[in-house]
């Protein structure tokens, strides 16, 4: 393997964003017919590195070579022309266009007077046959499943005659079974002489798929090892720099049912949230989590079935404001979009759900002093760094922004907490903090619903786990009742059929 040709080489890549050194002298080489994993936590610099390779950013120092030739910096086309294809984590596809149109996009000279549709269709059919990847070329991409859309991305790269395939967190959106199918595809590609670089923060799949692994931490290469010569614990240590915290979460003490759903949406969704319990919701995103979260957070009303809070049916005018008043604390999925108003100060954000309460308003007027004091207290108590009550929320890091939201939720003394992807995109310190706060809230008697697409996170924290798939909800499984593989089957929708 050592003697193999180097197809991609990055040397001394350095990139600085203001005070942040995102990439610091990164070296990386990919050989022909090899699978290399780029392992690192969120914020370790993986995405920046790929953006430099694909000309979205210019590196401050360092250079990139593909098949022995230097790639000119800052030119998105250069890497593509050199035969490097990228499958982004968030697919860069046009939902309104067909599969064929998506694949042809940018493949022909813009000034050509006619789209070569027939020729493209034939070539695509050939590729699908060669690599065992099938999709309907005339389907609208927006109508496809996530797995199919990923296949379109791979086909798009292959259509562009990619010899090197780079995948960014390819399994984040897949069920374990779909992920396994992807691995089979990738192995087939490698067997035909392609090279694969995949970016991940999941140790399991690195061990399963990669030949070599390069670990990034804080923008630097923390280590490069052959997978055969290492183990997950060593990789994890390299990734986080030291021993993992890894202590088990003590179980909660289940109390009365605080929130209960019976057959809402008419698809058999039954759910009970008990006091003193963290209920985890596992599943690939896009399987109905959003609808369930909208329902509990008040954005949607139950169309069918029953939703009760503390034994009472929710009011007919169920809304976000009603939810807050009923003691439902909500941590939204997308903190930038739904959690904070970026141009509001921290003080204004701290009372976003409660500005109308007597403590913060008098008649039509706001009590600005009280609001500022409340925010100052929250900032101290929840260790929000990077600004005071008058700072705009926009400038905070993701972790600190999440702490503001968490503080806002917890300070209201919620009986029920909806935590939708509460640690997505946060660094280790912030993750530990947010999780410990959720556990503390549980121990004080709150019913927590944890929604996450990270199965490990769900399993670590939850007292009860439900799996959601295609809008259906599995029965609740106690901690340790099911293996990861069994849960994976439920995620793929198979458990439901056996149970029925």
């Amino acid at each position: 393997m050592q003697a193999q040709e180097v197809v991609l080489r990055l040397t001394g890549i350095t990139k600085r964003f203001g005070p942040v050194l995102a990439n610091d002298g990164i070296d990386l080489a990919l050989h022909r017919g090899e699978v290399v994993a780029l392992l690192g936590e969120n914020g370790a610099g993986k995405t920046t590195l790929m953006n430099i390779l694909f000309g979205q950013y210019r590196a401050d120092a360092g250079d990139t070579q593909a098949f022995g030739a230097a790639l000119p910096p800052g030119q998105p086309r250069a890497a593509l022309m050199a035969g490097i294809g990228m499958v982004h984590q968030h697919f860069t596809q046009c939902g309104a266009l067909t599969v064929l149109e998506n694949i042809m996009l940018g493949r022909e000279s813009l000034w050509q007077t006619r789209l070569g549709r027939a020729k493209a269709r034939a070539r695509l059919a050939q590729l699908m046959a060669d690599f065992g990847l099938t999709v309907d070329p005339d389907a609208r991409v927006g109508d496809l499943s996530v797995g199919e859309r990923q296949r379109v991305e791979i086909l798009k790269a292959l259509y562009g005659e990619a010899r090197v395939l780079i995948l960014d967190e390819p399994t984040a959106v897949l069920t374990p079974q779909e992920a396994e199918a992807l691995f089979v595809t990738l192995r087939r590609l490698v067997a035909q002489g392609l090279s694969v670089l995949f970016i991940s923060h999941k140790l399991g799949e690195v061990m399963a798929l990669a030949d070599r692994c390069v670990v990034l931490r804080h923008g630097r290469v923390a280590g490069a090892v052959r997978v055969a010569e290492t183990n997950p614990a060593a990789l994890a240590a390299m990734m986080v720099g030291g021993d993992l915290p890894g202590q088990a979460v003590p179980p909660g003490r289940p109390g009365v049912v605080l929130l209960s759903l019976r057959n809402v949406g008419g698809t058999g969704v039954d759910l009970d949230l008990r006091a003193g319990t963290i209920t985890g919701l596992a599943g690939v995103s896009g399987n109905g989590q959003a609808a369930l979260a909208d329902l509990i957070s008040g954005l949607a009303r139950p169309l069918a079935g029953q939703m009760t809070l503390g034994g009472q049916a929710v009011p007919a005018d169920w809304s976000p404001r009603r939810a807050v008043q009923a003691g439902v604390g909500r941590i939204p999925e997308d903190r930038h979009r739904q959690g904070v108003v970026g141009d509001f100060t921290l003080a204004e954000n701290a009372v976003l759900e409660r500005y109308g309460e007597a403590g913060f308003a008098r008649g039509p007027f706001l009590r600005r002093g009280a609001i500022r004091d409340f925010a100052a207290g929250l900032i101290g108590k929840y260790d929000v760094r990077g600004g005071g009550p008058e700072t705009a929320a926009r400038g905070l890091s993701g972790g600190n922004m999440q702490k503001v939201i968490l503080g806002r939720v917890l300070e209201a003394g919620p009986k029920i907490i909806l935590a939708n992807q509460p640690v997505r995109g946060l660094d280790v310190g912030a993750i530990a903090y947010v999780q410990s706060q959720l556990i503390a809230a549980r121990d004080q008697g709150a019913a927590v619903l944890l929604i996450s697409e990270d199965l490990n996170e769900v399993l670590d924290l939850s007292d009860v786990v439900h799996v959601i798939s295609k809008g259906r909800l599995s029965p609740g499984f106690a901690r340790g009742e099911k293996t990861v593989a069994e849960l994976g089957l439920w995620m793929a929708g198979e458990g439901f059929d056996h149970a029925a």
Partner: protein
Amino acid sequence: MRLEPIAHPSLARRAGLPALALLATLLSAMALAALAGANPLAVLGQIAVGAVGSKFALLETLNRATPLIFTGLAAAVAFRARLWNIGAEAQLYLGAIVTVLLGTGALPGLLVLPVTALVAALAGGLLLLGPVLMKTKAGVDEVVTTLLINFILLLLVSYLLEGPMKDPMGMGWPKSTPLVTEARLPRIVEGLRLHWGFALALLAAAAIWIIQTRTKLGYEIRAVGLNIHAARFAGIPVNCVLVKTALLSGGLAALAGWSEVAGLKGHLSLDLSPGFGYTGIIVAMLALLHPLGVVVSALFVAGVFVGSDAMSRAAGVPTYIADIVLALALLYMVLALGLTRYRLVRG
């Protein structure tokens, strides 16, 4: 080249860029004057003298600023909530129609002024409610609907002036019967051609400033405008806030019509507004949507118009120079605002 967001723009950036925009406006005005074959500095001087150089000029500027403060506030309030009310022209005319309807003898003495003002404002607000409901219920872009309604309202005015509201003593001119004396706004100081509408416009600006900075409604309006998703998630009743904003914005624009008819003209005609509704957008943007800033920018814009009229008579540069300069000022200011939040970087 790409744009990089700046989390905390410096004061120099936040103040310097708008100042640069004003400088660019001034330079553009000079360039246009030179293009018209006149001496740029002399033209600027004549505009300034024409705007504030005499008691008469100053009063004219204040009078011209009055409706612009109202329409500027209308735009500023709506744009804060990201409600694109481009229909201030229609709301202004509806306010004027109501003023004539109620102010030509239908109401008894003392009540006339406050009632006409209130009903006019309500009518203006309701006129904007239609587009807002179309936006919230059917997803129709309110820019186009409010613009189209402007044309419909002007035709309505034309119909009224030729029919039901026609002044029998108008000698064929399309104008309405004049208001009764009780319906007219008195002058602030007897003998000076400046009516109470101006003072009320200042009061309105102060009221809007208090609403925006001190009240729950102002907080809600800003939250909806800055991030409608977060506002909705947090439980702010978004549609209700938009409706309140519409009533406020449409009402303010209608008050411009009321104050023009009751304070200045005394009757309704088709040339009541030389585009005050559209100019209000410029006024609001130049003020960076700040209610007190609207007063300053309305005075500036009114001065440019009044001064250009005077300059045009003297120097022969077409008076439309004012429209070009103000449109450019709007674009410069939007660009300055954009560059406050983003910087151009390489790579």
